[in-house]
């Protein structure tokens, strides 16, 4: 295997990891506020179709990111109204949101089938990516750099700002936060909206970064992996980054196994490579539930509806 081949693999991994990273970061913040939104897959698909449509109509990928975020946030508000204002069951509502989002994206995407769009180009001048190091550092879509910035921002927000502290407090003990005088429902609305926006961007990363063609259900279950990833990462943004790239790597290996055969299929049939991310999910889950530290990190109010007294 040549160095150039490895660089090509790396670049694919980065592309494959970015949507999971966006969606996972959003879900992490949502869950830190005590809300379990299982609708990530649906919100990603809505973001994907909104982003695709924007580029198709305007040709502006930057606008597409904004529209995708807004669309993701908008559908997440359906979830928020049902679960936060009307105290509906979060698990059931989240599942319904996924079904709703999937259907909506299929319907809206009907007319785009077969359309191609011009995806993001790199923001750096071409000469920067001429040598190998330059290629590894500077050849990506702007969304990739944005995802890294967001990891840092989310970490900083949660651990270094007062608003982040309040958000964690709301997820840890909603009744206490309420009695101190914080608006539990308000904080959760904001967190759900942020989660929706990030899932929307993650979904839009599929047409904008990976495959500039519309295909039905193009997220292929990455929303579910993002949810699992939040648990694996122990609700920590840094570990979420590592986890997203780990899953991105596994997904990429599958692609290469299918495409280039022999080297990979000698080790494992391509179906085996395809199953790897899911096997890894199970192994990671088992390891985490066996070790005490991993399971104890969950926000204490995760998934519990908040019903204030009077």
């Amino acid at each position: 295997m040549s160095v150039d081949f490895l660089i090509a693999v790396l670049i694919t991994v980065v592309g494959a990891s970015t949507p999971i990273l966006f969606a996972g970061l959003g879900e992490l913040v949502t869950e830190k506020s005590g809300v379990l939104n299982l609708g990530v897959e649906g919100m990603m698909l809505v973001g994907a179709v909104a982003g695709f449509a924007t580029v198709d109509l305007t040709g502006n990928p930057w606008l597409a990111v904004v529209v995708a975020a807004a669309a993701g946030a908008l559908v997440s508000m359906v979830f928020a109204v049902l679960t936060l204002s009307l105290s509906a069951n979060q698990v059931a509502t989240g599942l319904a949101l996924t079904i709703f989002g999937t259907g909506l994206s299929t319907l809206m995407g009907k007319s785009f089938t077969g359309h191609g769009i011009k995806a993001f180009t790199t923001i750096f001048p071409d000469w920067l990516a001429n040598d190998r190091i330059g290629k590894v550092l500077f050849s990506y879509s702007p969304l990739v750099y944005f995802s890294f910035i967001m990891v840092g921002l989310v970490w900083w927000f949660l651990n270094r700002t007062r608003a982040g502290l309040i958000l964690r407090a709301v997820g840890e003990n909603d009744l206490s936060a309420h009695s101190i005088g914080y608006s539990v429902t308000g904080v959760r609305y904001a967190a759900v909206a942020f989660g929706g926006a990030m899932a929307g961007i993650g979904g839009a990363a599929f047409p904008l970064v990976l495959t500039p063609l519309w295909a039905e259900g193009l997220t292929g279950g990455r929303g579910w992996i993002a949810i699992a990833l939040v648990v694996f990462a122990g609700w920590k943004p840094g570990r979420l980054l590592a986890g997203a790239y780990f899953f991105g790597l596994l997904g990429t290996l599958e692609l290469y196994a299918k495409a280039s055969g022999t080297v990979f299929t000698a080790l494992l049939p391509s179906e085996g490579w395809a199953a790897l991310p899911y096997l890894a999910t199970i192994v990671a889950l088992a390891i985490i539930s066996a070790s005490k530290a991993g399971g104890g990190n969950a926000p204490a109010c995760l998934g519990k509806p908040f019903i204030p007294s009077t």
Partner: protein
Amino acid sequence: MTDTPPRLSLRGITKRFPGVLANDDVSFSVRPGEIHALLGENGAGKSTLVKMIYGIMQPDAGEIFWNGERVVIQNPRAARKLGIGMVFQHFSLFEALTVLENIALGMDAKIPQRELEGRIRKVMQQYGLTLDPRRVVADLSVGERQRIEIVRALLLDPTLLIMDEPTSVLTPQEVDQLFVVLRQLASEGCSILYISHKLHEIKALCETATILRAGRLVDTCDPRVETSRSMAEKMIGGNLKDIQKPAGRSFGREKLVVTELSVPAAGHFGVPLQNISFRVHAGEIFGVAGVAGNGQTALLLALSGETTTPDAQAIRIDNAGIGRLDAKARRLKGLASVPEERNGHAAVPDFTLSDNSVLTGRDRLKLAISGIIRPGAARKYTGEVISTFSVKATGTEATAGSLSGGNLQKYIMGREILQRPEVLVVSQPTWGVDAGAAAAIHQALVDLAAAGSAIVIISQDLDELLQLCDTLAVINGGRLSRAMKVSEADINEIGLLMGGIHGEGGQAAAPAVPAGLGAEATSAA
């Protein structure tokens, strides 16, 4: 005094909930620097009243005056702005966050972390409170957690501090420390509104007591000249019945013998039981004192049979090893138990009372034969429980969840006691139960012992244990101290044992438990 207006004055405060009048035309005043007790049974309306003072709820009618001026306290933030601080009965702390983060959350102003830490250290020094701001709350003892709440309130320089049942979870030593802090605060001019139903504490601390009953103000008195009994009678609005405890009782043979019982910790925050040994004779009431979270839950589960031990001989009834038997088999052997949590553990809230009776009485009372329930027998037995223990319920078909806490507890205690168990293990028999119901439950326990049963009471209420028990041991960190006769027990020693490794600063008081106490327990009883 006459020309300074009262710090806080309530006039005609009324609050109505669906079906209940929580506060009915309550008026009283608190002077600057006064320690004012708010006294009443559970459900008398104390908590509702202070929630309105702190802005968590709004009164339906009535006025609040602050330093002579009429105010409307919209929310806790507004209350804090006026200078009202509150320490809650159930701490409003965030377990996964540090002490510093918890305090920062309670501050309305944005203060840089370093400056806040400096101010915290200053306040702690001023009042002799020890606490490490960097520790995570989940690792702290109850007393330390309360200190966080107090520091949080003090940082706002309050001129009125509301304390909602602050001592219910503290050791006697921690109570003394708290009182020192409160007296110092009052001497500096801060008024304190002290909610409690512990009368001797109110006598020791407070200058004025306002007594509430069923939402109404029934009396205002000076607790220093009243007796505990006279205040208790005002609280319940009737005569207090003394417990009839026959003097000079003799015990029968050994009923329940626990030898070197060890149980590994359950779950993340569980406490392991280590070498617990004690024995209880027929007719004896054995008390297990201790601060919450020291292994009481694990002990109850191990005794009731919800967790079993590999060593059958670790728990014996009448010399038969029952360590490996589950709860059902232990019930057949005559061991009944009442866990702390009434709704969801001792009783199924959505089941009727007679169905709940079947759950524990199915074998011993034959309320179910070969798997078929006998509804008539269950109803008859439940009716008996209801009438014997004066349970206020709409009948045997009322759901357990529809009963008030005290009445449900009376039903649950009655359900077990009328089965005449050989051994009864109860946890927190009168937790959150009003004084009248508590007296009835206490009397029933004493009567059951007099009839020859062995009783184990696990309680955080030391007064209750001293009143009821013949023998007492203290549980701390999953270890049980030696057993001591209540008549010879020294309250200071019990307090130190309760403090154990959880005392000052979390480590300093460790030597309070001499090594080898666990071994002595076997020989003591």
